[in-house]
């Protein structure tokens, strides 16, 4: 019988949640790396037992851990993330030039077809690649070296490269997103990049329609339609039908269009999920009611999904990498909160139940569908 493995990164360790295809009973393994921040962990699409985890702390810096047995055991691999060449500067919060400084790995994106190849999105924003299972990392400097790089500024959470999407239909096409620079696309395996932010409007920057400077929170793609991208921006939920060349707003009837994660149903490319958050000054759900919103029309028309979710006194947040889907016949949706809950739906969001309630603050959630 098929099953699911949910990989959860938290402020104080990693957890592996496992279930069979019914997704009713869960085995909880962890904490792995207790006491460390686990910004993200993710499995290889080419080898379900090959996992990568980003482990960091303010004291001891960055580590990368690798598992070859589905998270039962782990080995530290390479952790030297040196920017290539002269690091240069970006803008600091006060507008002055600030040297690029590596802080941590926010996101790990394993290759679609090679378990030993994995990409890392880091703060200060840069993209790295390993072709030897994480032992050695080389920067793809074309992104950070884009002519707009010196003008990039950090968002409140730091200047992080938080989203990496590999296009399954076009080897060499990679999407990346940076807070607060925007979305970028490469068509040559990461050698060169260009901003793909046309149509974004951000009132918090001097030129709302600028080529770069947008605080993109998350991008999502359905693998069957890689030219369609969805975006949760700082404010605004957006859609592109031409691989990022242009964007239009699909916030529609959402109660608020601020939020962090966005994801797509595994079998319905027009079914999209977001978690509206009150505002950038109130990082909790409107009215203290935790609601996932689903659009079955590719945006604009949204329905609240509340069954099984707290509908009073709920003041958690759901961070940008903390939502995932499985690909079982009835699509499973998962998200984690800053309050330490991981909720699961085995019916595409119609109803929810917590897998765990009292983990440390959840930073990331990924789902693996097991044969």
């Amino acid at each position, binding site marked *: 019988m098929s099953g699911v493995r949910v990989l959860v990164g938290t402020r104080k360790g990693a957890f592996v949640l496992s279930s069979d295809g019914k997704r009713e009973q869960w085995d909880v393994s962890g904490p792995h790396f207790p006491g460390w921040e686990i910004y993200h962990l993710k499995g290889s699409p080419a080898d379900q037992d090959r996992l990568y985890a980003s482990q960091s702390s*303010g*004291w*001891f*810096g960055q*580590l990368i851990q690798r598992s070859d047995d589905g998270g039962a055991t782990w080995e530290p691999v390479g*952790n*030297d993330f*040196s920017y290539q060449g002269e690091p240069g500067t970006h803008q600091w919060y006060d507008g002055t030039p600030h040297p690029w400084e590596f802080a941590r790995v926010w996101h790990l994106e394993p290759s679609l077809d090679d378990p030993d190849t994995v990409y890392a999105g880091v703060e200060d924003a840069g993209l790295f690649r390993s072709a030897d299972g994480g032992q050695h990392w080389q920067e793809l400097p074309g992104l950070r070296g884009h002519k707009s790089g010196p003008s990039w500024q950090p968002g409140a959470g730091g200047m992080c490269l938080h989203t990496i999407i590999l296009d399954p239909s076009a080897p060499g096409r990679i999407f990346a997103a940076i807070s607060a620079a925007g979305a970028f696309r490469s068509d040559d395996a990461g050698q060169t990049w260009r901003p793909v932010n046309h149509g974004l409007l951000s009132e918090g920057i001097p030129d709302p329609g600028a080529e770069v400077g947008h605080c993109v929170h998350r991008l999502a793609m359905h693998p069957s339609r890689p030219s369609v991208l969805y975006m949760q921006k700082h404010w605004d939920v957006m859609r592109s039908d031409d691989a990022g060349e242009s964007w239009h707003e699909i916030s529609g009837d959402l109660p608020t269009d601020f939020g962090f994660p966005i994801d797509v149903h595994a079998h319905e490319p027009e079914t999209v999920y977001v978690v509206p958050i009150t505002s950038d000054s109130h990082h909790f759900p409107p009215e203290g009611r935790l609601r996932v919103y689903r659009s079955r029309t590719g945006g604009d028309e949204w329905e609240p999904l509340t069954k099984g979710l707290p509908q009073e006194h709920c003041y958690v947040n759901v961070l940008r990498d903390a939502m995932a889907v499985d690909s079982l016949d009835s699509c499973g949706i998962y998200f984690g909160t800053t309050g330490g809950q991981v909720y699961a739906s085995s019916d595409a969001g119609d109803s929810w139940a917590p897998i765990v309630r009292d983990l440390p603050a959840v930073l990331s959630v990924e789902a693996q569908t097991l044969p």
Partner: protein
Amino acid sequence: MTGCADVVRVALPAHLRTLARVHGEVELQVTGRVTQCSVLDALEARFPMLCGTIRDHQTGKRRAFIRFFACEQDLSHERPDAPLPEAVAAGAEPYLIVGAMAGG
């Protein structure tokens, strides 16, 4: 201060003991003069997973929230190539690598 060592004893903070999969102190053979740099070189050679966790990969500078203590002295701000106390080089006293108190 000293020349060459017998065995240098190093005490790691708990997280780094876990990472290196050791319990208690680590005993290291240090070649040449016993300095912060030579001790860390020997430590990282034996436990490569500790590279980058105590000092920066490129610059070799101590990470901000790491401290080095020995013989009831704070040696954190000593030059990396300065000789460590005789008692450390002789293995009589441990070289303490400490995670600074911080957080909440």
